[in-house]
Structures are given as structure tokens and as C-alpha cells.
């Protein structure tokens, strides 16, 4: 089969348009982070310096450095310049640069989020496909009912219930943390599942897996529900198309029709939904990490709020916003690449 004709130029233009669209969003996120500190009642320098207070000379120096004596637009310019150089300030508690703290904790969040989305895909795609093929069967009603419940689930409660069941009743999984305290694993990649395999302690890997199970289920529940619903409706739509009837008329096997003809087209909207779930995933990570004391960026942000560690809150929110924005962009680009209709019309 010949590849459909496409021009590199059109592709390049598509990519450039999409990339340029994120600039206003980025500016918006930085504006939000910038005003965040200024909305906190009180003097922003004292807000940034913490509760220990600050001597007048240093106060004056910081005032100049941050440009608080200048007009607000200049202050924003100074802030934006710092952000673009990767300077997001220092944590008031640990005195560590916010960027360093974020990058040391972020792998834990990504590991959890990846496991959750894999969990959601592995269960959600087949459930949605089968529900669509056996439309109006008991299985279909069951999947739709469960996914509606999953979609309405307060996941912070769901986590506690799973702890109650699996950790307290059956003593199967640990209650919190990422790995047993017995093990010290040298962070190489930051992903414990990989790092433990690289280490010389094979039991450590199983400890890490065991700690991952409940958080993965909790974080994966909402995406699972959404993916199952979306896959079902996309499949139903595609199964009604003419080319499916043609394939049936040609006498192709049911499996071939579903796997080769229908699924490919049904997956296009599903990919977008998965992309949109990334934002939901990071939101869920904040709650999941809090429940399971998972040492990721979500728990770090919540802790920062209660410690009044405003630089961490400001920088962390900005970084998470940028991550979600970038993922959305990548999904958008992927969508354009797999769907020729989008690529050519824009």
C-alpha cells in the first residue's frame, strides 16, 4: 500500500501553528504565578522570606533585586526573565532551589501517573471495545454503570476504602510510602521500578511494586472510567460506518473487522481523551500522594501550603502548569499526525 501523499511543508506549518499557540498560555501561567505572591496579604518580600523575618538591609537589597520599587510591568518582566533562566527561587524551609526540589520529586509522580494511565488503558480499552460489540448486553450495562460510578468517584475516599480493604482487612499491601524502609536505593533514573532492578536487591523491586498497587488503582480510576466510556462510544460510531458494512459483506472475520478496521479509527478520539486525562491525572496525583504519603510533587505542593512556603507553591504550580501544557501540546501534535484530516485542513 502506498503511503498517502503529504507535504513536509504542510506538516511543518501545522507543527509551528500549534507550538505558537502555547505562548499566550505560557504567559498566562507565569502571570498567574507572578500575581499569586502579590495577592497574599502583607509585604511580598516578607512573604518570600518566611516567618523568621528579615533585616532591613537585606530587605532593601531584595526590594531592588526583585524590582519592587519599579512599576508592576517591569517587575513582571524581571520575574519572567528569571523564570526563563530556570530561577524559580528557593524554598523557605530547605533553602534548596525550587527547580531542584521539583526535579528530584517529579520522577515519583511520573512513575505513579504512568502506571495509572497504563492501568486505565489495559482495562479501559478492552472493556469499551467489548461493551460496544455486545451493545445492550449485561456486560455493556455493567461497564457503563461502573464507569459512571468511577467518573463520580471522590478518589480521596476511594483510596481510604482500598486501604481499609487491602491493607487493614487482608494485610496485602502497605499503607503508605514508595518502598520499604529496609531498602536504600541509589536514585539513578528516579523511577523506583527501574532503580530497584538495577540494584543488587531483587526483593526491593517487589516491595516497590507492592507499594505502587493501591496508588495506581486510585489514580487510574477516573481515567479508566473516561477511557472505557469514550472507547465504547467511538467504537459504536465507527461500527455504524459504511466501510464496516463493506468489510462484513466481503466476509471478513469479526475479529479482523474489529481489530483492523474499526479499532484504528475509533482510537483517534480516544487518544485525545487520554491526552486530556493527563491534566486530570496530575490533579488526582495531589490527592493520591496525600493519602499514601507518596513522595511526589503533589504532596510537596500541599505540604508547602501548610508550611506557608510560598516560593515552592509559586514555582511548583508554574512547573506543573507548564508540564500539563506541554503534554497537551504533544497530544495535539500526535493527534494531527495520526489523523490526516486534521493535518490537511489546518
Amino acid at each position, binding site marked *: 500500500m502506498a503511503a498517502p501523499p503529504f507535504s513536509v511543508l504542510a506538516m511543518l506549518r501545522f507543527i509551528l501553528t500549534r507550538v505558537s499557540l502555547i505562548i*499566550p*498560555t505560557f504567559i*498566562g*501561567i507565569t502571570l*498567574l504565578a507572578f500575581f*499569586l505572591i502579590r*495577592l*497574599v496579604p502583607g509585604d511580598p518580600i516578607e512573604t518570600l522570606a518566611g516567618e523568621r523575618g528579615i533585616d532591613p538591609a537585606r530587605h532593601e537589597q531584595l526590594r531592588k533585586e526583585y524590582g519592587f520599587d519599579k512599576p508592576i510591568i517591569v517587575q513582571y518582566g524581571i520575574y519572567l526573565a528569571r523564570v526563563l533562566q530556570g530561577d524559580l527561587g528557593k524554598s523557605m524551609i530547605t533553602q534548596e532551589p525550587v527547580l531542584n526540589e521539583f526535579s528530584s520529586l517529579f520522577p515519583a509522580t511520573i512513575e505513579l501517573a504512568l502506571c495509572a494511565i497504563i492501568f486505565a488503558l489495559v482495562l479501559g480499552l478492552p472493556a469499551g471495545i467489548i461493551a460496544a460489540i455486545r451493545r445492550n448486553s449485561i456486560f455493556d450495562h455493567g461497564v457503563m454503570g461502573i464507569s*459512571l*460510578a468511577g*467518573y*463520580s*468517584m*471522590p478518589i*480521596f*475516599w*476511594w483510596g*481510604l*476504602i482500598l*486501604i*481499609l480493604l487491602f491493607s*487493614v482487612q487482608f494485610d496485602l499491601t502497605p*499503607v503508605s510510602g514508595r518502598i520499604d524502609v529496609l531498602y536504600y536505593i541509589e536514585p539513578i533514573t528516579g523511577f523506583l521500578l527501574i532503580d530497584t532492578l538495577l540494584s543488587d536487591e531483587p526483593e526491593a523491586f517487589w516491595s516497590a511494586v507492592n507499594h505502587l498497587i493501591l496508588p495506581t488503582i486510585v489514580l487510574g480510576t477516573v481515567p479508566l472510567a473516561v477511557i472505557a466510556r469514550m472507547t465504547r462510544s467511538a467504537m459504536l460510531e465507527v461500527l455504524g460506518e459504511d466501510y464496516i458494512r463493506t468489510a462484513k459483506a466481503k466476509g471478513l472475520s469479526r475479529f479482523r473487522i474489529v481489530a483492523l478496521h474499526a479499532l484504528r479509527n475509533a482510537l483517534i478520539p480516544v487518544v485525545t481523551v487520554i491526552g486530556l486525562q493527563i*491534566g*486530570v491525572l*496530575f*490533579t*488526582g496525583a*495531589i*490527592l493520591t500522594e*496525600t493519602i499514601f504519603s507518596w513522595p511526589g510533587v503533589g504532596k510537596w*505542593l*500541599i505540604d508547602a*501550603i*501548610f508550611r506557608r512556603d510560598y516560593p515552592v*507553591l509559586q514555582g511548583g*504550580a508554574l512547573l*506543573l*502548569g507548564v508540564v*500539563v*501544557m506541554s503534554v*497537551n501540546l504533544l497530544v495535539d501534535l500526535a493527534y494531527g499526525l495520526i489523523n490526516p484530516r486534521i493535518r490537511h485542513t489546518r
Partner: protein
Amino acid sequence: MTTETMEAPAIAVPTATPPHPVREFWGYFSANHGAVAGLVIIVAVILVALLADVIAPHDPNLTNTAIALKPPFWQEGGSISYPLGTDPIGRDILSRLIYGAQLSLLIGIVVVAISIAIGTVLGLVAGFFRGLTEIFIMRLMDIILTLPSLLLAIVIVAVLGPGLMNAMLAVALVILPHYVRLARAAVITETSKDYVTAARVSGAGTTRLMFREVLPNCTAPLIVQASLGISTAILDAAALGFLGLGAQPPSPEWGTMLADAREFVLRAWWVVTFPGLAILITVLAFNLLGDGLRDALDPKLKR
């Protein structure tokens, strides 16, 4: 579920004329069993909230350490006067859940009301004035949509300070873009229609066009979104409460109750199970209702 047919109009419609819109709506709506079930649950929750003073067996804030952590009545050690057990400081869980229903409904309704009021105005303005105003408003909404909703709400509450009022404001802002987009899209499709042109030619001003002519014609999607919005609002406000950023103890808000009881999860399953169940059932009901309303009201999706 037969009690719900009360909602249908009692007016007898002559058979030759098309069915009354309300009757037609009810025909579509009642065919969806999930939606009817959702409506029944919501009516029940509303009744519980309204009659809280009458039906709650105890004062929701009355503490009594002598009866702390009593299990539900069907378990050993439980008593029928505290049907769902008591919390770590001896408050009756059922009574707190009943008063919590008031708070959750209040949160859902106030948040969505704020969002609809501001959102439709912004959307109408964007749709009518186009140009820079539109770009500015819609870009702002895109940014809000890009950020994970709970993260944005958390940041706002962290700045404004924890509390129910600030949590409601934060959630209202987070769900705002949906209403703005809906209203703007409706304006853009409606303004090209003849009746708007007719009204304009007859000398109607922009404000009149916006609110008297166009707005009534985009209420259907707004109602659907409102029902779904209430479920989001209840869920997000409960999440903020759980994180200690929403309603503060001793408020019987369901999320706050969960946060209060969290450390007792290993000893007393009932202190965490019931508040979460209440959240789940209420949110589910509003989602079911929203789905049903969409099928019944949105002509584009009618099959």
C-alpha cells in the same frame, strides 16, 4: 419512581397539536431510567437537607467522649440511637451527614450560580463584541482550562486562605470556562438567525438582544452544564475540604469529615466510609441527571 411523575404538567394537551414542550421533554427524560433514578436521589437529598432539623437524631456538633467511636447499630457495641456510629469525639455520624447535605447542596448551587452568572455575561460579551474583547476573554478561559482544575483551585485557596467561602469562589472560577464557551458558541450561531436580525431592525439595543433575545435560546445547554457543574463543584469542594483547604472543622461538610476521620481509618471503618459514600451517591445522582437532561434537551443528540 412513580412519585416523580408529579413533575409532568397536568395540562391536558389536545391530541392533534404537537405535544407541549414540557411533556415532550418528560417523555425523553423519563425513558432514561438512570436519569430518573438520579432525580429521585437528588429530590431525596434536597428533602433531607430541608428537613435536617426535624430528622437528625442528634445535634451534629454535640461531642460526648463517653460514646466515642461507637460502631453502626448492626455491629456489636453499636446502638440504634446512633445508627451509623459516632466519630472520634462522639458526634453522631448520621446527624452530621444530614447537616452535611445542606452544605453540599449549598456549595453546588452557589458555585454553579456564580459561574453561570459571570460565565454567561462573559460569553455573551465575547460573542457580541468579537475582536480583541473576544480574544482576551477566550484566551483567558483557555488558560484556566489548560491548568489542572484542582491545582488551580488549591493555589487560589492557598492565597486567599482556607475556608468554605474561598473554596467555593475557587471552584466557581475553575468551572467558569465551560459556561463562557457555551454562551459564546450559542451567541455566534444565534446572531445569524432571522429573529435576531428582525429584533435588531426593530431597534433593539445590544443589551436587549443579548439578554432578551439570544440568552433564552441557549438555556438548554446551560441547564445540562449546570447539572454536571454541580457534581464537579460538590466533588472539588469536598476534595478541598479533605485537603484541609475547604470548610474547616467542626463543619459537617463531607470532605472535611473525611479529613477529620482519616487517622482513625485503621480502627473504625465507619468514620470514613459513610461521608465518602454520601459524596459518591450525590455526585453520581447529579451526573445521571445531567446525562438525562442532555439527551432530553439537546436536539443535536436526539436520535
